[in-house]
């Protein structure tokens, strides 16, 4: 009983120190469940970041970056305890990584390399228990693994809706050290959209959905941090700093909770399915990705044709005006005409002829083609089923 009282007063004290009022629940919950990460610094990678604890036995989710390629990644919990973090899985597609906390001394003594294969299958958890988030539902878990539902919430996390408050917890600018609480930024969940972005000059590999937020999260050190709702449920993870191709602005976003959950599920599946211990502990999605790409390329038919020839006259940027439509082709059947201007292909804006050809190449073998075209003053939607030569 006394322990409980102490714990309660400790929590109250913590909430008083951090903040009081509407956001304290979110802040206290998130702070206890993120770790400060320190690793490899190289070039634009500053060598520090944030991770989210997703199991009582010390699994930590973070963004895929050079940071985790350090010989020994250091993770510091909210209590200030130092652990080594070893990489369990990487996912180049989702740009995520899963780490396992191990005692710092063990890692030092054994000189374990961060990609060690000995961690996952070594039986009983060696660290913890930690307060964590249920990665599937986002529910905050006590160190015992029991859910920590706020009193006024039914036993199901509320669905995140646009306009909902969010708090992002992360070690932006490495402001916090040791047991100091990480930094929090507050905002609302703006919208859910597909990411089309780049880092410097290269396209950002993750093309899935993200949660756009209006809190300022795109700061060094913040990626990998927890994004929670007002009640303290995990809704996403702060993504890496990117520039949106739609607006040409740096913007603030999080990888949605369901994408995080899918990554962890894939990791589990891969682990259970793999026959050898080595494979089972290190799930390298990089390999999976390249295999997927290879198979996609194999299935891609380079001579895909819907019977459209586009304008060729022009300087640098040629607007995609239809020059000719082949008789009897899918394009002709769909009603495409000479001099139509193609505006979009399967929802993607087409700026010029090169864009059109590029988008056609990206099509799956049996994917229908939805064109939006402008004819005189009208804008028309046309659908065609591609054929193969």
């Amino acid at each position, binding site marked *: 009983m006394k322990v409980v009282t102490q714990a309660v007063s400790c929590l109250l004290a913590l909430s008083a120190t951090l903040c009081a009022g509407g956001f304290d629940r979110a802040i206290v919950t998130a702070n206890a469940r993120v770790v400060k990460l320190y690793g490899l610094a190289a070039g634009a990678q500053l060598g520090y970041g944030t991770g989210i604890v997703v199991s009582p036995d010390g699994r930590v989710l973070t963004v895929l970056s050079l940071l985790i390629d350090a010989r020994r990644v250091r993770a510091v919990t909210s209590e200030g305890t130092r652990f080594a973090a070893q990489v369990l899985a990487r996912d180049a597609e989702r740009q995520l990584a899963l780490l396992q906390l191990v005692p710092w001394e063990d890692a030092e003594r054994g000189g374990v390399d961060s990609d060690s294969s000995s961690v996952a299958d070594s039986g009983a958890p060696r660290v913890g228990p930690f307060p964590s988030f249920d990665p599937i539902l986002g529910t905050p878990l006590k160190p015992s693994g029991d859910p920590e539902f706020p009193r006024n919430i039914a036993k199901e996390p509320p669905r995140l809706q646009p306009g909902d408050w969010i708090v992002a917890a992360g070690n932006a600018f490495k402001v916090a050290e040791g047991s100091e609480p990480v930094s929090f930024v507050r905002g609302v969940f703006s919208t859910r959209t597909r990411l089309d972005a780049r880092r410097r000059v290269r396209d950002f590999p993750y093309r899935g959905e993200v949660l*756009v937020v209006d809190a300022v999260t795109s700061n060094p050190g913040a990626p990998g941090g927890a994004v929670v709702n007002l009640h303290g449920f995990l809704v996403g993870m702060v993504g890496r700093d990117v520039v949106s191709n739609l607006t040409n602005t740096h913007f603030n976003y999080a990888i949605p909770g369901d994408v995080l959950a899918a990554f962890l599920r894939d990791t589990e599946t891969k682990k259970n399915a793999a026959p050898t211990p080595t494979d089972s502990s290190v799930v390298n999605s990089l390999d999976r990705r390249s295999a997927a790409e290879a198979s996609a390329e194999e299935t891609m038919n380079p001579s895909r044709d819907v019977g459209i020839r586009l304008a060729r006259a022009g300087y640098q940027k040629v607007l995609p005006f239809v020059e000719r439509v082949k008789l009897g082709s899918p394009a002709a059947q769909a009603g495409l005409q000479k001099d139509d201007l193609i505006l979009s292909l399967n929802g993607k*804006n087409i700026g010029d002829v090169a864009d059109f050809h590029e988008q056609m190449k990206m099509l799956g073998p049996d994917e229908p083609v939805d064109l939006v075209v402008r004819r005189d003053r009208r804008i028309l939607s046309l659908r065609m089923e591609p054929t193969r030569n």
Partner: protein
Amino acid sequence: METQGARAIAVQGRIVWCNLFSETRVCCWYRLCLLTMASVLGPLVDRACALSIDRNAGENAQSESESTREEQDFQHFVAIQGLFREVADRVKPFLVRIETVGGAQPVEIRDDPRGPSPEGEIPSPVPRPQNPFRDSPGGGFQIADGPTTGMIYSSDGYILTSSFNFVREPALVSVTLTDGRRLAADVVARDQVRKLAMLKIDAENLPVPEWAPVDEVRVGKWAVALGLGFGGTEPSISVGVVSALNRMTGNAFQSDVKISPANYGGPVCDLTGRVMGIAVPMAQRPGELAGIEMYDSGVGFALPRERVDQIASALRAGRSFYRGWLGMTVDPQNQDAIVILNVADPSPLRTAGAKPGDKIVQVEGKDVRHFGELVQATYMIPAGDEIYVTLERKGIQFGVKLTLARNIDLGPLPEIEEPLDPSVPAIPPTDESVPPEEEP
């Protein structure tokens, strides 16, 4: 609308009540009675009370009242996020997605050395244009290909948006309504000074937004900005407060909502879903992209109804607004006086009789002491508008009324025949090392 308005007030009402309650220092029993009475007043308070009793059993009165207050704060935030969502639902039918095809990037010319360098720009000196009166779009910002935002202005198909969305001079513009219809649009007119644009689509009976009266746009009020620039059909929501009024010489109000290319041309609403203003990029200097570097900074601007209506009626009639120029060169480094170095021929100043060596001392009756203040006094006045300028020649002040011109209507700078006033240090107007700054 009334229902939502009433709800907003109701939420605030509860909070007021709750605060009164939590500050009551009374014995536990009395409080319990109060709580029981209070519980019939609404589930919100009910919950707070239950929690208060539960949590504070055996604790002292001080922490009891504190935790109650915290719970009330929490419930307040829960309630208010529901209102943000309602605003979005209410405003969605008036939002339109604008897509453009073709057009070039604006030419990169830094026209004001005082402006902060936008991200990614190499701070190397950019060669000045040959013609000092050439208009500069400003900034070095690359306009992206993504969709932009507008809102329906009138039910007969006029769409109000920001001129930012057409800086590239696109060949084609299309507008997609919430009901999914995608229509070709004409750009009727643009205001490059106040950053507005009016489009026309062939559609009838469109829903129109309700605008908040100007006197109800007050500092501290919640502001909700909506935009479609991140793609998809659902608007993105950003939330903040009105942070200042009468910015940009009375044209705009300021808000800390995140305003960026994702919502330029979109509405900034109050909590009942009325439009308080339209989000535009702006800064205290001329240039069509001025202010873009402040995107998402917490310093954003929106034009309120009063200004929008004044400008929109002209835009609907097909009148575009361009940056207004006096047609002269001055030394921007001179912090003591605005001495005219040369006057273009023809130009508004020449028509008004100004000569090299004259000083500009007032604009519209307001003292201007150096180049920065002159820009501040004139950058929001478009070409075609009259202004009253007070000049000083040999210690004698005289006023002239002149009509600002477009840069394309300005003539070249003539050779200076007359010697300048001996009290003024002569600066050769075409010296390459110290280029004279042209003034709007």
